[in-house]
């Protein structure tokens, strides 16, 4: 058991020490008891923020760890969302069927990522080109769905509804003894927090394990990694599929949360948002991405209440400022600073004890 827990720590994450995990436990407890006294509206809002973090974590894995730059994660977000909508509308919500719809939609996003990724990664398309093709893909998806307003665009019982957006799918529901629990407000909050905890810890295990070490080796020098005998393409494809499946999960949760999805969630400026969150937070660390994304979503929503345009101008400025002044990302820099301070204090304490 202890050995398993040790595997959570390693060179590919910033927070590893006892102090970090104490802080982690403290925050986790806060997160768990938070709905007890908070306003139900705020609880629902926090769940809404958490929904987007999966996509950010996936992008951090791909971009920060594996060095694959995708500008089109919203394509998989939308595919997950529309996939969930179409499946849930068609099979209904009895029993655990919405959970099956969730699984199918995430699988759909993963399969699409696998196909697209196969052509590009096995064609050795890297760097800029990868970003551009994924970007063009998400914009083409948005354009395609935008014009599906007519009644002929229907999959089973589900009307795609074009730019008006598709609605009418069920909330996620977990079957229970005395009837299903519908995931909204408090129930959704706990569901998403639990899921986020699992994904976060799972990613930590992954990046600190063999897989993550190879990914980082590829990011640092693909040729060297290949000469050392690793099939670079296999690892990159795996990272891309996993990251895109997480984007799909975000899409499913978002659609189930609002029972609604529109093509705008795949177009511009939506496609830029995951990039802004992850670049600002610090793409090379999952903890930084999680914390930073939550913070920036909170700020974004606060400003959106006054004006959406100003909020988006702020996002653009954040991206520009990050690139110019803090290319590794604010949260990663903060993490490094804390670690240096901590190291400095412990050496001082040792010095004075002597």
């Amino acid at each position: 058991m202890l050995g398993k827990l040790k595997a959570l720590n390693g060179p590919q994450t910033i927070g590893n020490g006892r102090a970090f995990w104490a802080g982690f436990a403290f925050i986790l407890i806060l997160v768990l008891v938070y709905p007890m006294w908070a306003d139900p509206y705020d609880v629902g809002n926090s769940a809404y923020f958490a929904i987007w973090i999966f996509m950010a974590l996936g992008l951090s894995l791909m971009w920060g760890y594996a060095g694959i730059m995708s500008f089109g994660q919203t394509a998989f977000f939308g595919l997950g969302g529309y996939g969930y909508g179409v499946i849930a509308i068609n099979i209904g919500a009895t029993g655990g069927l919405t959970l099956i719809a969730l699984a199918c939609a995430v699988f759909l996003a993963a399969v699409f990522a696998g196909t697209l990724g196969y052509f590009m990664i096995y064609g050795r398309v890297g760097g800029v080109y990868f970003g551009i093709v994924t970007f063009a893909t998400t914009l083409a998806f948005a354009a395609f769905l935008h014009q599906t307003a007519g009644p002929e665009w229907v999959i089973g019982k589900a009307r795609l509804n074009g730019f008006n957006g598709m609605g009418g799918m069920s909330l996620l529901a977990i079957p229970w003894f005395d009837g299903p629990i519908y995931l909204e407000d408090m129930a959704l909050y706990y569901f998403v927090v639990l899921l986020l905890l699992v994904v976060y810890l799972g990613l930590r295990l992954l990046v600190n394990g063999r897989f993550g070490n190879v990914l980082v080796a590829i990011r640092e020098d693909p040729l060297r990694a290949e000469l050392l005998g690793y099939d670079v393409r296999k690892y990159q494809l795996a990272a891309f599929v996993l990251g895109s499946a997480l984007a799909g999960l975000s899409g499913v949760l978002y659609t189930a949360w609002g029972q609604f999805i529109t093509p705008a969630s795949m177009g511009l400026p939506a496609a830029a948002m995951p990039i802004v969150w992850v670049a600002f937070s610090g793409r090379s660390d999952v903890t930084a991405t999680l914390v930073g994304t939550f913070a920036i979503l909170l700020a974004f929503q606060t400003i959106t209440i006054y004006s959406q345009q100003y909020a988006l101008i702020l996002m653009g400025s954040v991206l520009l400022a990050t690139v110019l002044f803090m290319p590794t990302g604010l949260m990663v820099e903060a993490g490094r600073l804390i670690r240096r301070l901590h190291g400095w204090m412990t050496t001082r304490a040792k010095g004075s004890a002597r």
Partner: protein
Amino acid sequence: MFAEIFSIVFQFADVFAFLVLSAAGLAIIFGMMGIINLAHGEFITCGAYVTVIGVQHGLPLPLAQALGVLTAGLIGVVLERTIIHRLYNRPLDSILATWGISLIITQGMLVTMGSSMTGVGTPEGSFQVGEYTFSTYRLVLFAAAVMAMIAIYVLFMRTRYGVQARATMQNPQVARALGVRTPRIYASSFGIGAALAGLCGALYAPTMTLIPTMGITFIVEAFVTVVVGGSNVLIGTVPAAMVLGVIRTSLNAWQGQIIGQIGMLIAVILVIRVLPEGMSGWLLRRKS
């Protein structure tokens, strides 16, 4: 029969002009500096807006269009001198920076200029072949695309600037050692790329609704053409636009606009699987 063939050729020329004009500026900036300029769409928007504002203030259309090209080019030079030149050794970061700029400009325009603007109508004039009627302005667009390509050829192959620019592109260190002022070359190349984007906007302004996000209409096609073409404008963008134009025209005729766009995207993913360096990379490799 002749009318049918002419109609197909006309449609192809229309798509070709659209692809070449929307991609040329992007391709020059990418070829020279390895930067994909994600604010490309905003330069196009800039060209279109300046053109329409010029016409509304009484300028004749061609003059207003020239003004649009000039404005976009100047903004490009200013942007390069203030922001982009800091990021040359970090190409991926420069893409992010241009994306940030794109967001700021689009949303800023929405705030200051509103969500749409009254356009100027397409210049009238049409001609008839057989029983079909064609718009003359579409032919003007095609001619402009061909002329832009000829101008780029002359500029890069026949002038002193062109020699210096190509030298900088191949090996900036050696070019600098031989006395080429590379920062100036970079700034002017970025300006030329921006001006070409402005030209695209200026030419298409009379045919479109003016909204701050109108750049989106062009960028998918522009990116796709540049990806297929590779880093060389002259031997990349032109053949890429031809191939994509054929695909696009036939799919449009068969299934409509949106299938045309998606089919083009699929074609790109297939092409890139076979020719990762694009057509210019392939052509150059065959030559050597």
